[in-house]
């Protein structure tokens, strides 16, 4: 078996993630797709300093409660992350969109700039890393992480027998690895 996932397993993984999410209101929900299958959606708001090289992301709710000092250059960005199954590549794909408070879409340059430092190496091939794409279900323009190396990445988990026992959710594992580059961070609750 290579690093692929079947559509049926993808749906099971998404269902499990949404079930866990519901327990602590983390906003992952299932949506029905055109073909009667499902995909996963999560909305979140993050405070982003778009002008700093060193971008610090904090969840809006937390910083609001802490009453931390707010730089005038920070603004609240609304993210919507969609996790869909690709039948072309037989892997999950992360689509997302990010809006400023004035409703305008974040530029591709800003999206690239938000990639955390530890993932900066991926930006050497930035055009084949994150770019715009037509959302397969909605038809409008989203950003997406290119899926063409996902099966290679996941092969390490799927085929490694020594950790196979603990490997329970392909989508969750994949999302923990790639989500941070698109401002999608998972709580530890998912991995207990």
């Amino acid at each position, binding site marked *: 078996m290579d690093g692929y996932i079947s559509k049926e397993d993808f749906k099971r993984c998404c269902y499990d993630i949404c079930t866990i999410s519901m327990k602590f209101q983390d906003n992952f929900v299932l949506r029905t797709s*055109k073909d009667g299958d499902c995909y996963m959606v999560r909305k979140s708001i993050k405070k982003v300093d778009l002008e700093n090289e060193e971008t610090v992301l904090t969840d809006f709710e937390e910083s609001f409660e802490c009453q931390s000092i707010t730089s005038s250059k920070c603004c609240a960005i609304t993210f919507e992350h969609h996790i869909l199954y690709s*039948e*072309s*590549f037989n892997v999950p794909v992360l689509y997302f969109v990010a809006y400023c408070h004035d409703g*305008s*879409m974040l*530029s*591709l340059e800003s999206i690239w700039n938000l990639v955390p430092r530890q993932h900066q190496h991926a930006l050497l091939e930035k*055009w*084949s890393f994150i*770019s*715009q*794409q*037509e*959302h*397969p*279900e*909605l*038809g*409008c*323009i989203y950003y997406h992480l*290119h899926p*063409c190396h996902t099966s290679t990445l996941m092969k390490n988990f799927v085929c490694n027998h020594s950790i196979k026992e603990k490997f329970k959710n392909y989508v969750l594992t994949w999302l923990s690895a790639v989500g941070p580059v698109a401002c999608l961070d998972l709580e530890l609750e998912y991995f207990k």
Partner: protein
Amino acid sequence: MADDKEVLREIWEGRLPICFNISPDEITTVDQPEPCYLLVPRMSYFPLVTDKVFRHFQKASNQDDIDKMWLEYNGQPLKWHYPIGVLYDLYGENVLPWPVTLHFKKFPETEIMKCHGRDAVEAHFMSAVKEADSLKHRSVVINAMKRNDHKQLWMGLSNDRYDQFWSINKKLMERVNSEPFRCIPLRVHQRYKPMLMKFCKSVSEKGELNTLGNFFQTFLPFILDENDHSKYSKNWKVIIQGITPMLNTPLQWMSEHLSHPDNFLHIILIELIC
């Protein structure tokens, strides 16, 4: 394959006459600028052919950022990431020369991708080629290629060089171990609806090559005549590369010969009763 090279060449050399005008509300000069006429390859992408158009209207519009430029026909923004011929077959209504309008203001950012120059077009093109090969060969062929091969593919397309393009693309059209493609890369376009991808194997359960008619019968039966599935419905027009193929055409052959350079078979469905 040798006998069908004429088809590949003919497809490659498809041309489309376009008349570009600038939107009236973009004009900052007293004089009305002349239209800009271009004969463009059907297989190419708008950003690769519109530098000249931009320069033509630059004075009248007082614009210096080509990335803000977007194109529209009949109120429909044109998605630059699809081949020009696909956009014409889908929206052009057989009008020639095709009257396309240039805009700079109010970029419709949820409908069209921003185009950041040729790098963006190349990235999008290669992304489609990789997806197509994943469908055909589980990405085996595209991953075996060197970076220079990818560049040859792109340079062949962007510079309109048939031999350069096909010297590489022939590998992507190979039947590895004489097996037909795992799956036919195809995209189905309808006006005002998201593009559809349907996953159709090259060979049917009975071991026969699937035809275009088999594809419609399985995935889009409304395209076929209710009483006679060997005919198209009178309510729909099907266009591939500007023509309507016979329903008994094998999909594998169509994929090898009628695909666009991105290696996808783009199928346009036009509803005739509105």
